C-alpha cells in the first residue's frame, strides 16, 4: 500500500531510520531525537497529511525487546492513499519526546492519552494533563508492571455519604 519512493526519500533524509515490513505494512523506526523532524518531513514532502493515531506499547515483558517503550505514530496520505507506521523507542530515565501538536492539532488528545496511560512526557505540549483518569491518580495503568486489579486506588477513593454532603 505504500510506494517505495516515500521510504527511499525518508531513508535519504534520515540515514539512521530502519525500515521493516509485516503483512504489507511498512514500519520505520526513528531515533527519538529525530522524530519531530522526520514526521514534519513526511507531512510536508511526502504528503502524509493525516495523523491517524499516536499510541504506545510497553515492551517490559516482550520477548527479545531491547527497549522499554515504543511510541507509535500512524500516518496516512489522503491523496496518495499510503500508510506508514513510524515508531520510536524510549527507555526509562528519559521518557520525553517532542510534541507534534505544532504539526497536527489532532495530536493534542492523543498525546494526553499516552501521557495518562504510560507517563511519557511530550515537550512543548500546550496542555499536558491527565485526560481519562482523575488528576489525583498517581500510576500509569497501561504499563505492564501495573496490575490488572489496580493498586487499591478505587477502594481508597473518598466516599461522600448522604449525611456528610
Amino acid at each position, binding site marked *: 500500500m505504500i510506494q517505495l519512493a516515500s521510504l527511499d526519500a525518508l531513508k535519504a533524509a534520515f540515514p539512521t531510520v530502519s525500515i521493516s515490513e509485516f503483512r504489507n505494512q511498512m514500519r520505520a523506526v526513528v531515533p527519538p531525537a529525530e522524530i519531530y523532524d522526520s514526521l514534519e518531513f513526511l507531512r510536508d514532502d511526502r504528503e502524509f497529511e493525516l495523523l491517524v493515531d499516536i499510541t504506545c*506499547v510497553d515492551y517490559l515483558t516482550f520477548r527479545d525487546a531491547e527497549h522499554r517503550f515504543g511510541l507509535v505514530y*500512524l500516518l496516512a496520505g489522503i491523496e496518495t492513499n499510503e500508510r506508514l507506521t513510524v515508531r520510536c523507542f524510549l527507555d526509562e530515565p528519559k521518557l520525553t519526546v517532542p510534541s507534534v501538536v505544532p504539526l497536527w492539532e489532532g495530536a*493534542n488528545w492523543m498525546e494526553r492519552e499516552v501521557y495518562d496511560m504510560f507517563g511519557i512526557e511530550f515537550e512543548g505540549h500546550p496542555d499536558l494533563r491527565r485526560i481519562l483518569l482523575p488528576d489525583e491518580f498517581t500510576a500509569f495503568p497501561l504499563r505492564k508492571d501495573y496490575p490488572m486489579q489496580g493498586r487499591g486506588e478505587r477502594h481508597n477513593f473518598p466516599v461522600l455519604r448522604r449525611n456528610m454532603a
Partner: protein
Amino acid sequence: MALTQVRTLENRLAEGDFSSSIEGLTEHDYQWTLNFGPQHPATHTTLRLVLKLEGERVVDAVPDIGYLHSGFEKIGEHLNYNQYVTVTDRMNYISPMANNVAWHCAVETLLGIELTPRCKYIRTIIAELARISDHLLCNGAVGLDTGAFTFFLYAFYQREVIYDIFETLCGARFTNSYTRVGGVMYDITPLVTEKIRTFVKNLPKTLDDMDRLLNRNRIFVDRTKGVGVLTREEAIHRSATGPIARASGVTRDLRKDEPYLAYKDFDFQVCAAKSGDCFARYLVRQAEMRESLKIVAAAVENIPAGPVNVGIDERVAIPTKQQVYQTIEGTISHFELTMSNRGFEVPHEESYTATEAPNGELGFYLVGDGSDVAYRARCRPPSYIHFAIFPHLIQGHTLSDVVAVLGSLNIIAAELDR
C-alpha cells in the same frame, strides 16, 4: 476574576473601602461558567463540558472526559482474541456489529488469515446494517435535539427492524458478539435473508419520509446550517475521519481506498459535502444510508456458497462436529483450540488494521506475543478524536447550538472513554 483580584477586593472590603472601581477588571470578568453534563439528557451519554459563556455565546468549551473509563485496553491484554469481542460490543454500542468486524479484521491481519468469500459477504452485510442503524440513531438524535420528535421516531422504528434482523442472525439484539477469529458465530439463514430483503424494500420509504420532514424544514435548517463549520484543512489537521471529514470535503472512505472484506465487489458512491457544518454532516449520513442499502441489497442476493469459517488448516476456528468426529485433523484442531495451554499461534509482531466504522476510522493496533492473548490491543476510537474537535467547532456559537453540534459529531461516551 483572578484569585489575586478577589483577595484584594476582600481586603479592601474588610478595610471598609466600598468603592466600586476595581483595578484590572476587564470585559472577561463578566463571563460565567456553565457545567454541561455529565448527567444531562442532551449529552446522550456521560460526558461533561465546562462552557465559558458571555451572555448566550460560548467563548470557550473545555471537555472533561473519563467518566465512563473502564480500562478496555487493559482488559484487552487479559482476554483472548475471541473473548475480547464481547468488550468491543460495549465500545460503540450504537453499532456493535461494526466493532466486532473491526476487531476481528485486525486479529486476522495479525494472524495472516484469509477469510472465506461467504464470510466476507456476511461481514459486509452486517457492517453495513450496523452503519445504517448508527446513522439512523445519530440523525434521529440530531433531529430530537433540535426539536423534531417525529423524525426521531421514524428513525427509531427502522432501527428496531435492524435489531430484529440481528436477533434472528445471532440471538442477541444489542451486544451481538457475532464474529469469531476466522469466521462468524452462525451462518446466515434463509429467514435472515428474508428479513433483510424486507428491510431493504422498506427503508427507502422511511428515508424519503425523513428527508421530506427535515431537509427543507425551516427550524431544522436554521439551527444546523452554518453551525459548527469544520473546514477541509481543519478536518485533516485535526485527524477527522468518516462522515465528519467527508462532510468537510475530505473524500476519504476506507471502503473505497483500501477495500477490505468484499467491498470491491459492490457499486456504491462515497458521499461527501463541502460546507462542513452540522447540516452537511446530516446530509452525508442520510446519503450514506442509501449507499449502504445498495451494498446490502447486492450482497444479500449474491452470497457465495461454501463454508463460512476458515478451514481446519488455519487452526483458528472451531471445526464442525462432523469434522471432529470423523477426521483426525478435526479432532486434533478441536483439542488444540479447546485446551487452555494451546490456543493458536500468533506471531511476535504488530500490525494496525482500520475499517470504516459508521463514525469514522475504527482501527486496532495489535501486538501479538505468541499467546492467544494480545500483548497490546490499542483501539483508535473515532469518537475520541472527534470530541477533541468540539471546542473548536462551538466557539462563537450560542448555548443552544451545543446540542446540535454535539449530536452531529455523534459522540458515544463508551467509545470515547473506553
